[in-house]
């Protein structure tokens, strides 16, 4: 993975000094609350319901074991013994003391981590496929391009005060989209043109929130070296013409929709014409330099599916079940990709203890070249495990409570922190997640249901991605009471779609019943082998609606 040089380290160190100074001025009363707000936001600090929340950037989800240990130490020494993996692949701490945040950031800077632009109306952490670099299907490794974007976006002088937050995602797999890229302000699909040259299909104007929209194509093919000048052009158009009068209409998706994507593209192209051959154009030397950080680790030459592995699969059904759900095919024979689902019963989705973090660091060192990844589904991946050692890994993970065999199943849900922590939320989301975890804990049943994305957000800001859940649950406020609106048919993959609302919202204590009714309709309607989303797309909303809202008996 990328390693800082003196320049990168100096920039992050100078940031820590700057923020310490800003914090001191704030604590001395020299910066009023209102003006401190954007400063702390740009350092990842929200003021939550009970305490500040610190969001630490995990650039495109990559972590080394040293960084995992530093995060574990922060959880142990400055928080209440746990941390939270967010849907932007970042780490969040829910209970740090405000005045200790600069100290935490200084500590993290020592392991090349920061909280720069993890919130506020600026360019946020770039995300990508959690299997980057280890799957055969990808065109190229997307991470060097993510790092290009990270450096360009860090303290960009022109774009620190955009109309609204701005999220970029990169994908390099032709037929899959694990990074939900079409839901981003800008998405970059790495492609080859007919001449075989590497470049990008650029999309803009996607987003969730109040107005969920999938992004549209702005340019079919952008040459490899033109990435940054093109992003400059897009965001310069947005910075000048995006709405600033209403925060709910300020995302780039609203601008693209208002202008129409053709007009928006024309404006971007006109702007880009001035920039494309300037100094901002990427150089081959820089691309080569960044690619050199993402070369393959020292893989052994191994045979696929060694006997000891096949034996373990045959003899231990619990292990086999975990492999079936949580292990993916690696591009190298004899290796595998393993995911720890952070979705255990009794803990909030994405939560992880300091002890588990230390242990994952050790497992990464022992089994996976010292690296790990976070995912936007709030899980953690070890990407380079020898198949021969999977059984040992599983046993260790199981002892740590990290081997729940439910990846992609109903209980592998995405959930925001909701009204238990977040000051913006209309309703709590975690108790709904917990009730569902408890009600649907039969592994046979979960495996029989197969892949279902269930996503829960505590408010319209949609941090829990409810619009793109096959089953989406949105907390709403009805005259001071917490209710939940259900949507069906959302999807986040290559065939992404936004869910449709089932009908009037439900009280919290009905949510388990409603989900059960929806699942029963699916089970009754499905044709052999059909997933939930496939069945929904075939039969439509009607049977679900009928079951969820039975007509009152007539006299």
């Amino acid at each position: 993975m990328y390693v800082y040089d003196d320049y990168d380290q100096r920039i992050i160190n100078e940031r820590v000094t700057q923020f310490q100074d800003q914090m001191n001025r704030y604590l001395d009363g020299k910066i009023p609350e209102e003006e401190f707000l954007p400063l702390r936001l740009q350092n990842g600090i929200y003021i939550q319901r009970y305490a500040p929340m610190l969001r630490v950037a995990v650039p495109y989800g990559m972590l080394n074991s040293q960084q995992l240990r530093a995060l574990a130490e922060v959880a142990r020494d400055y928080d209440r013994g746990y941390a939270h993996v967010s849907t932007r692949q970042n780490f969040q701490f829910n209970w740090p003391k405000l005045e200790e945040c600069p100290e935490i950031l200084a500590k993290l800077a020592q392991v090349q981590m920061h909280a720069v632009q993890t919130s506020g109306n600026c360019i946020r952490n770039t995300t990508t496929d959690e299997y980057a670099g280890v799957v055969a299907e990808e065109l190229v490794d997307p991470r060097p391009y993510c790092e290009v974007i990270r450096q360009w976006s860090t303290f960009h002088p022109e774009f620190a005060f955009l109309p609204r937050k701005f999220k970029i995602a990169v994908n390099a797999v032709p037929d899959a989209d694990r990074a939900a890229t079409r839901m981003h302000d800008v998405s970059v699909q790495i492609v080859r043109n007919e001449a075989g040259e590497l470049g990008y299909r650029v999309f803009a104007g996607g987003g969730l929130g109040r107005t969920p929209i999938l992004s549209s194509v702005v340019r079919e093919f952008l040459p490899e070296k033109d990435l940054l000048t093109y992003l400059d052009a897009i965001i310069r158009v947005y910075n000048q013409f995006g709405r600033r009068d209403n925060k709910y209409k300020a995302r780039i998706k609203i601008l693209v929709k208002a202008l129409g994507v053709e007009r928006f593209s024309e404006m971007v192209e006109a702007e880009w014409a001035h920039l494309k051959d300037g100094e901002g154009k990427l150089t081959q030397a820089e691309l080569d330099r960044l690619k050199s950080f993402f070369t393959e680790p020292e893989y052994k030459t191994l045979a696929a599916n060694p006997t000891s592995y096949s034996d373990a699969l045959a003899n231990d059904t619990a292990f086999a079940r975990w492999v079936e759900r949580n292990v993916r095919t690696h591009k190298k024979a004899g290796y595998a990709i393993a995911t720890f689902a952070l979705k255990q019963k009794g803990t909030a989705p994405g939560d992880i203890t300091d002890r588990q973090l230390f242990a994952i660091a050790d497992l990464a060192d022992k089994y996976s070249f010292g690296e790990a990844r976070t995912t936007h589904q709030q899980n953690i991946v070890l990407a380079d495990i020898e198949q021969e050692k999977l059984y040992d890994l599983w046993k260790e993970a199981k002892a740590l409570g990290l081997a729940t065999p439910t990846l992609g199943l109903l209980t592998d849900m995405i959930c925001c922190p909701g009204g238990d922590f977040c000051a913006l939320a209309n309703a709590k989301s975690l108790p709904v997640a917990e009730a569902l975890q408890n009600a649907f804990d039969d592994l046979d049943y979960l495996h029989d249901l197969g892949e279902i994305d269930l996503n829960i957000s505590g408010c319209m800001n949609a941090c829990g991605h409810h619009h793109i859940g096959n089953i989406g649950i949105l907390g709403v406020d009805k005259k001071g009471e917490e209710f939940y609106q259900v949507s069906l048919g959302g999807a986040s993959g290559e065939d992404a779609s936004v869910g449709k609302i089932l009908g009037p919202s439900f009280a919290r204590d009905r949510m388990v019943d409603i989900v059960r009714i929806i699942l029963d309709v699916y089970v009754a309607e499905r044709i052999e082998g059909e997933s939930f989303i496939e069945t929904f797309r075939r039969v439509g909303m009607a049977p679900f609606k009928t079951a969820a809202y039975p007509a009152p008996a007539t006299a």
Partner: protein
Amino acid sequence: MTQIILDKQIAQDDWVLVADDATLSGNKEVINFSRWNSAVDTDKADLIAKRDAGTLGIQLNAGDTADLLAQDSQGFALINVDFPKFADGRGYSAARLLRERYGFSGQLRAVGDVLFDQLFFMMRCGFNAMAMREDQDLELAVKGFETFSAPYQGDVNDARPLFRRRG
């Protein structure tokens, strides 16, 4: 006379922003862009003469994008860019465009809700003057230009991004 920051030092301000209906004198005066833009015939000729004499400045307000002024900017001795709120970042793009695209080389001044923690970004986008909000400490502010020593991106002062400067 109020104090501003000019070329990273505290300086006296000798410009005055005048109301749209004010009669102009021979002093250094700044008019709103809208007045310039709507002036015709002899009014426009008078403004051009004053501009060419070096005593007319112009102010871009919220929503006035740099392309509206474009190459016309070159004759002005001063352009103000107003920041109605510190969180309104349109002025950063306006500044870069005036400097990098439209060849403006006079005094480019940030006015309005201009606070200490924005100065470094403003300088990089081409502002060489800042009229800071009244409550700001100018002595402290002039130190704000040293926050970062080697930024990643190219900017108005050095068009080369770090990847073209990295040793």
